[in-house]
């Protein structure tokens, strides 16, 4: 014991010495040092699950994959929905828009191999392969017979993808799709280096090391430089990238910061250029402290409650409508979410030239809605909430979701005299309960994969896996089928709108608000603009004085 005590002053002296040397090194923050090296430091929400476009599903994964792999097209840095040529130099489609031909440019993988049309074919084959278990295989279902192949019903040869020659890729689709280029921006449509995947275990090896160091090979603006779990993932400029000269930084470091409070503190301490998320409670303070750093962008994401229409009393549309009308969305957004959203009575957020559905209640005052809600509830047999069985609101353990549930519970109690329970669930238990329909009311959100209303409205197909409400209608399904078959963009949008309106009137969900992203951005960062899909091409972002 005495020995240990003796050592203590020595340890303190050592600590102090280290402190001084580190403290006096240079008074600059880590972002300034990173900026000098041309490195952008970015909060990325969580540790990526995979960098393989065929295994990844998380938003955090997608942001990194977009750096490492480039698809046929690439997004614009500032304009939503604008599409630039990527690996494809140019493309054309037939009149029905169900056969597309892409002409690839001369490009190289980061190991010097040429990028060939076969790499795309190989990639789609891999993701759709019945033995591979691609979680996002559905993204490729627009390809002809892709779904059937994925289920093991048809051979690969039947699928509508073909490399006509090394630099010509032909895609044949199930149905007309004038919006195809929007879909192609998603990472599931990226090519993979067939020669590398083959040399490291082959197409069907889910444990393949091809996206890990030192094997990682890509055709994107960056290549993987280092990766330590839960610490940082760094990519650096790929000298073989076809636009290598246009890159405005030399690399990006992704920090998997789970805790929004920690992330915000790190930003103030100069550890990040751009954060992922400011928690609602800190919004006002952040806005005050640094108005030029605070960003609030519209996001292609909808927050809503799923109602289990198989369970009484939620099987009664009047009850569902009463519950929906009784919620004061403006209060909810302003006071609970602290303004990080826009109140909504429709499901699909505005964007992509979709007018959206405007229901009559959207124009009413809250008093009118409340009166209507009370009337509907008593019509359904629960005047003043008497005899109403208490349904359960299921939420995840996230603070915002819990607060929202508590607010809505209180609103229902005050307005309708209806009592609801709240069940906060651990993450996987929540997903399991929702997907198996084992809930009454489920606090949900949906974000679009691509900029097109179909990514939202398609959800409510009666056979749709993510519907989960037990609701379905033949009219809605018919409208969706009509939209899918339409080659004309106007006809298609109108059909989608009709489908959404049918769904909203039946109210299997309670739309609450369109989510907005709140984050902090170093004012010195240039080339970062609000994007609905949050799919910023990071090569266009400039940090510090030079590019």
């Amino acid at each position, binding site marked *: 014991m005495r020995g240990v005590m003796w050592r203590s002053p020595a340890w303190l002296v050592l600590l102090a010495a280290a402190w001084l040397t580190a403290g006096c090194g240079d008074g600059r923050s880590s972002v300034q040092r990173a900026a000098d090296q041309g490195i952008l430091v970015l909060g990325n929400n969580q540790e990526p699950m995979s960098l393989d476009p065929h295994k990844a599903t998380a938003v955090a994964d997608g942001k990194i994959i977009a750096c490492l792999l480039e698809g046929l097209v690439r997004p614009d840095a500032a304009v939503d929905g604008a599409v630039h040529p990527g690996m494809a130099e140019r493309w054309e489609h037939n009149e029905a828009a169900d056969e597309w031909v892409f002409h690839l440019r001369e490009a190289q993988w980061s190991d010097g191999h040429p990028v060939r049309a076969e790499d795309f074919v190989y990639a789609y084959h891999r993701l759709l392969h019945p033995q591979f278990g691609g979680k996002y295989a559905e993204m490729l279902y627009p390809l002809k017979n892709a779904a059937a192949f994925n289920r093991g019903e048809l051979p690969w040869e039947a699928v509508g993808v073909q490399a006509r020659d090394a630099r010509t890729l032909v895609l044949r689709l199930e149905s007309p799709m004038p919006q195809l280029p929007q879909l192609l921006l998603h990472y599931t449509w990226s090519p993979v280096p067939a020669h590398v995947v083959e040399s490291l275990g082959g197409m069907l090896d889910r444990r393949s090391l091809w996206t890990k160091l030192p094997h990682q090979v890509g055709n994107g603006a960056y290549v993987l430089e280092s990766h330590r779990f839960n610490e940082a993932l760094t990519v650096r400029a790929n000298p073989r990238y076809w636009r290598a000269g246009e890159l405005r930084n030399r690399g990006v470091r992704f920090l998997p910061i789970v805790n929004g409070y920690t992330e915000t503190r790190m930003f103030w301490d100069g550890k990040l250029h751009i954060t992922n998320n400011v928690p609602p*409670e800190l919004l006002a303070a952040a806005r005050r402290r640094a108005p030029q750093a605070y960003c609030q962008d519209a996001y292609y994401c909808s927050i809503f409650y799923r109602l289990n229409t198989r369970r009484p009393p939620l099987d009664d549309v009047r009850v569902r409508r009463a519950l929906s009308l009784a919620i004061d969305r403006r209060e909810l957004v*302003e*006071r609970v979410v602290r303004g990080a959203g826009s109140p909504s009575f429709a499901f699909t957020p505005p964007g992509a030239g979709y007018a959206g559905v405007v229901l009559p209640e959207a124009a009413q005052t809250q008093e009118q809605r409340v009166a209507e809600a009370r009337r509907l509830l008593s019509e359904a047999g629960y005047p003043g909430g008497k005899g109403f069985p208490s349904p359960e609101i299921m939420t995840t*353990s996230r603070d915002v979701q819990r607060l929202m549930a508590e607010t809505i519970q*209180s609103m229902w109690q005050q307005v309708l005299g209806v009592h609801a329970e709240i069940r906060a669930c*651990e993450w996987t238990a929540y997903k399991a309960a929702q997907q198996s329909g084992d809930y009454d009311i489920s606090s949900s959100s949906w974000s679009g994969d691509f900029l097109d209303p179909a990514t939202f409205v398609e959800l409510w197909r009666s056979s749709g896996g993510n519907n989960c409400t037990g609701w379905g209608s033949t009219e809605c399904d018919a409208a969706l089928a009509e939209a899918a078959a339409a080659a004309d963009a106007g006809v298609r949008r109108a059909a989608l709108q009709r489908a959404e309106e049918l769904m909203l009137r039946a109210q299997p969900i309670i739309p609450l608000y369109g989510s907005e992203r709140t984050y902090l951005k170093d004012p010195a960062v240039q080339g970062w603009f609000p994007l609905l899909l949050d799919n910023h091409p990071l090569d266009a972002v400039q940090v510090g004085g030079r590019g």
Partner: protein
Amino acid sequence: MKRCYEEGHSLWRDARRRLARNRAAMGSLLLLLLVAGACFLLPLSPWVANPNEANLDNIAAACSWEHPFGTDQLGRDLLARVLYGGRISLLVGLVATLVATLVGLVYGLISGYAGGRTDALMMRTVDVLFALPFIVLVVVFSLSIEEPSRELTEYLVAATGWSRESVAPLTGLLPLFVAIGALGWLTLARMVRTQTLELKGQEFVLAARSLGLSHAAILFRHIAPNLLGTVVVYTTLAVPGMMLTESTLSFIGLGVRPPNSSWGTLIKEGADRMEVSPELLIFPALFFCITLLALNFLGDGLRDAIDPRSAKD
């Protein structure tokens, strides 16, 4: 060397007298009673608001006559939430103390006293339970007793005529109590066992044994009183931990159900907002700390009073 041959009840009577003389302990006892009284009785009075009634027009308000502690992030009266939360937390604390003391003490005593194979088996069981991931265990527990606890709710509602809203928060705590019961006693059992090992070799135990006393008598009359110091110290250490564990669990759907509060959940929510509204953290934390401090002094007093060695002081 040890003097605990007196009759059991005289030991307790002495202890009571000594405790009554300890001013810090009595003050703490009074304070504890006051806090418990406030939490359990005050909400029955008309002066305390409904803790779950949100008022979005009055979010995070400062202290006022109407809201002595101000309001929380949904405009609910913080005083009411602290008082109602106290009920849950005090209950958790009580259960945790009882379980840790009874199970831990008895288990450790037996293990240490028996020694040999029995001891090894019992202590290795503790090792296994210690290393099992707590959350997994609690979730599995709560799933398996979800149905019984729901039935209990229904039964209580039917039998007593209380409203479901007032019964559910309590029966909802059942999984938590089971979890505490299952795991709250491990560390104490280890400590007690070590000390029992030490004590059983001492002269007074040998003397007791040679007098032909039964094992149970030796264990509980002669060894256990010597362990009270450790038990009290450890319990005052463990209770805050358990109360806070409750808050962690309520965030994954176990323990107290939202919108009900406990000191743990209030402190957790307050910690998230400490930069913007510190009072949301300070008030519940104050109650929490005062209660535990009082518990601590009371525990020390209790220990001094019961400790056979302090008898001649």
